[in-house]
């Protein structure tokens, strides 16, 4: 069968093992664009949307475990919105309602576009990607997952099965710059997550480098400068500005048809400062 629709994870992995080079189909919102445009031809497809092990959101200890085939529409509200608000905000900016009903978080990871809307959040939170493949299951820290534009650490025959997101106490936010509010690819985006218990601030940057990026130096600097309380923190106006400049310095943007490198670096610095101010408010 040129299109296999397995009903278990084992069946999906067996299909991928039996058909090296098979194309994995999740929500289809990236893949089918390439197919319709004639940029991609298909020989063998393994559609993973009906694999029950990849479905659903559950809370395990101090983490939220999100099945790879969970569509963004399910991340906009409910458990994820309650426990990982930045991910819900990001989910709501993905494409349109039609796209969010189909597109999955596992697809966002496996496609590994630098503009993937959920990816800055996973970077800011230090999420772990769970995968399964011919060599068994493994957990890949998000910092090691992206290896280049649309390239990831996934091996042939390996599937993203879930993403493990820590539940933190502290403000979170997600800002995205694009030409309008709906149906837009980020020109620059940024997620921020505050960990009040560890007194840490994490950010993830989208569309300003070959992969989603972290900005560890800027984050360590602002966490050391902040005036922490049990329920929040304060930063000076000058430090917020300097934080924006340091985040902008961590970007590695390029010029393309959506914006210039100079604009992207500027924009990501502005939204970093704005996000920090919102967290400190």
């Amino acid at each position, binding site marked *: 069968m*040129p*299109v296999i629709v397995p009903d278990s994870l084992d069946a999906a992995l067996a299909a991928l093992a039996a058909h090296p080079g098979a194309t994995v189909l999740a929500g*289809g919102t990236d893949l*089918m664009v390439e197919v*319709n445009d004639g940029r991609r031809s298909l020989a063998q497809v393994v559609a993973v949307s009906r694999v029950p092990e990849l479905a659903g959101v559950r809370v395990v200890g101090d983490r939220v475990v999100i099945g790879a085939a969970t569509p963004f529409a399910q991340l906009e509200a409910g458990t994820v919105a309650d426990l990982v608000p930045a991910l819900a905000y990001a989910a709501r900016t993905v*494409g349109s*309602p039609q*796209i969010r*009903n*189909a597109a999955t978080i596992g697809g966002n990871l496996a496609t590994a576009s630098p503009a993937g809307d959920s990816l800055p959040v996973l970077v800011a939170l230090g999420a772990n990607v769970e995968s399964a493949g011919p060599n068994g299951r493994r957990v890949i820290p998000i910092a090691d997952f992206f290896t280049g534009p649309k390239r990831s650490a996934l091996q042939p025959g390996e599937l993203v099965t879930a993403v493990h997101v820590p539940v933190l106490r502290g403000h979170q936010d997600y800002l995205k710059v694009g030409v309008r509010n709906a149906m837009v690819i980020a020109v620059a985006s940024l997620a921020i997550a505050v960990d009040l218990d560890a007194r840490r601030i994490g950010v993830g940057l989208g569309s300003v480098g070959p992969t989603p990026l972290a900005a560890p130096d800027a984050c360590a600097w602002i966490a050391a400068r902040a005036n922490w309380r049990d329920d929040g923190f304060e930063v000076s106006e000058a430090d917020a500005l300097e934080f924006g400049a340091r985040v902008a310095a961590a970007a590695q943007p390029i010029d393309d048809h959506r914006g210039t490198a100079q604009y992207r670096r500027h924009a990501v610095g502005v939204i970093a400062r704005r996000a920090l101010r919102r967290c400190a408010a």
Partner: protein
Amino acid sequence: MTEKYVLRVNGNEHPVADGWLGESLLFVLRERLGFPGAKGGCEQGECGSCSVLVDGTLVCACLVLAAAAIDSEIVTIEGLQPNERGAMSDVQRAFVESGAVQCGFCTPGLIMAVHALLERDATPTDLAIREAISGNLCRCTGYGRILDAVEVTVSARRDVPQ
């Protein structure tokens, strides 16, 4: 070529033979099964003109791999119409009466989006309506009369519960 497969569209089973792998649900609906209601605008999920329901969920048919949509309940604009020839659903009638239809190309997709919205939220706020149709592009109306048509439908359903 794909092997023969069966799609369930508007409650009936439709075998698809001699399809090519990679054909979208939109293509198969329009060109192989005779459901031309869903329109092909952009074929990249931007315009929403091909919106259909798959297992009750609004999606762009152009982004669904047809051969992977087996065992799903697919509903197209043709499936929303009452059985009598020429009859319209309440949303369709409200669109016509509100002047929400100009060239008509986006209309089937918008009608599907509005039906999907009102299924899950019978009294949506203005923001909820705008967000629900944010994936459907209309280049004629400026959207004002489309929003009016949704309000008309909501009021009518409130007065005469379905």
